[in-house]
């Protein structure tokens, strides 16, 4: 029995060595497909505690993230913005490939927490309220930036970055860049390219580029010829002094709802 046991352990080590190339091959394929990108480090250990860390190491990252997300929801109901931000950091570290976590974390910070900061009656100084609002908005932007860095192969967070830059930070040049990047993905919705054009038109110095971009969309056909696009094109034609012969046709277009 003892001899067989020793032989079995020797064989176990040899089998481990023989399986090593396949392990490495699978690990490389996983990395290429954006699997296992979680950065399990001492910072995460401090945030989730020993048992949470053990669970994360044992392959239960997603249930742990789900439980923490529910905790964040409770914190939201109690308007504990600081606690929420901390939980969001942990959840997004545990599940960096989940777009929903990045998107919602950013939305909660840049919209809900920022608005709450401005309406904070306990803070009499308006300057400090504005400062707090900006900090939350920046935090929201930071979540999206990290989300994009972890998911460069998907358009959704670029789109959300565009919305945030446009509606919250009012940085039209940055919004145009984000929408443009989103529109480069083959599965991106068609409005991403239109939004890029609209924002580019508001970015000083990029008017001509915006016009060319919108014009290209117009040439794509009926699906892109929405009233807002046509109106903006006409406005820009006047502004850029485009020759009459090069302008878009002035035919009536069926009404459509722009998103």
């Amino acid at each position, binding site marked *: *029995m003892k*001899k*067989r*046991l020793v*032989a*079995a*352990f020797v*064989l*176990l*080590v040899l*089998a*481990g*060595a023989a*399986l*090593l190339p*396949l*392990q*490495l*091959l*699978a*690990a490389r*394929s*996983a990395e*290429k*497909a*954006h*699997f*296992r*990108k*979680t950065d399990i480090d001492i910072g995460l250990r401090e945030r989730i505690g020993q048992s949470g860390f*053990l669970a994360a*190491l*044992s*392959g*239960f*990252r*997603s*249930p742990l*993230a*789900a439980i923490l*997300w*529910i905790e964040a*929801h409770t914190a939201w109901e109690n308007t504990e913005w600081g606690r929420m931000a901390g939980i969001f950091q942990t959840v997004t570290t545990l*599940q*960096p*490939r*989940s*777009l*929903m976590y990045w998107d*919602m974390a950013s939305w909660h910070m840049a919209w809900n927490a920022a608005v709450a900061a401005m309406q904070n009656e306990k803070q009499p100084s308006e300057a400090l309220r504005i400062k707090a609002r900006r900090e939350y908005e920046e935090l929201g932007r930071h979540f999206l930036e990290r989300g994009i860095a972890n998911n460069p192969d*998907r358009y959704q967070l670029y789109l959300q970055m565009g919305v945030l830059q446009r509606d919250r930070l009012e940085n039209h040049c940055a919004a145009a860049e984000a929408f443009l990047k989103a529109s480069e993905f083959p599965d991106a*919705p068609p409005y991403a390219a239109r939004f890029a054009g609209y924002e580019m038109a508001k970015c000083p110095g990029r008017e001509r580029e915006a016009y060319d971009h919108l014009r290209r969309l117009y040439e794509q056909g009926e699906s892109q010829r929405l009233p807002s696009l046509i109106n903006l094109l006409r406005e820009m034609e006047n502004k850029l002094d485009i020759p009459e012969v090069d302008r878009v046709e002035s035919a009536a277009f069926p009404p*459509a*709802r722009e998103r």
Partner: protein
Amino acid sequence: MRALRVTAAIGRNTFTELVRQKVFFFLLIFALLVIGNSAFMAKLSFQEQFQMLKDISLGAMSVFSSLLAILATAGFLPKDMEDRTIYTILAKPVPRWLYLLGKLTGIIALLAVAVLLMSGLFLGVLWLKESVVLAETRAQFEGAPVEELARAVKEVTDATFQANLVPGIAVIFLKAALLAALTLFISTFATSSIFTILMAAAVYFIGHLQATARDYWLAGLDPDWWLRLLAAAVALVFPDLQAFNLTDDIIAGTAVPLMLFVETALLGFLYTAVYFALAALVFSGREL
């Protein structure tokens, strides 16, 4: 042919024995988790609800199948020896390795049924939840342009069932089968089922760190030879269980390339075969 018949007979017997031990009662807890989770999450947005449902359900599937694999396998050898059934079987012209193969087949069949039942329950709840959200969406978009309704419906369906869940569930089963073979190997030289369970649990945890030790060893950056040796020992002795954790990323929407699935499945199959072969080697020399 005879070997197949013997394996099937022992496997069937093992399966029936385990079913009689009411192991499937754990499904009640799983059902409570899945249904309770979906009812409790009603306050969240539909994307959040679907994400939570998938996170908790697939996590629970992984826990239950791994536990079932370890506990069911750890108990059978001491039990068969205590009941003396093992002597009755081995007194017949049944080689010891065939007895083990039959037992492992029975346990793997039990794991397959358990994973199938859990998947059915999970997918059923997911489908029901999707139907409710779709009905709500259609009511909300009544009168809106068809294009907008189609976009909203697509958002809901994209958040629910993804074809990627299937390879994810298959990998959960493979991991459980691997753990069953590993526990079988430990039980062939273990003195009690508690020892087997503890050892298997330890291997389970270390196995999830094996990839870290392996990369550390292969990078060869540490100047201390004994640290490199320790990392090499972990990398060579323990299985890479982290390779079987695809569901965490599948839930997050990452697509599983066919090559990755094939490599992972092959790894799972080879690990199972290696542990079984080692179990047969040790068991053939064990005094009964």
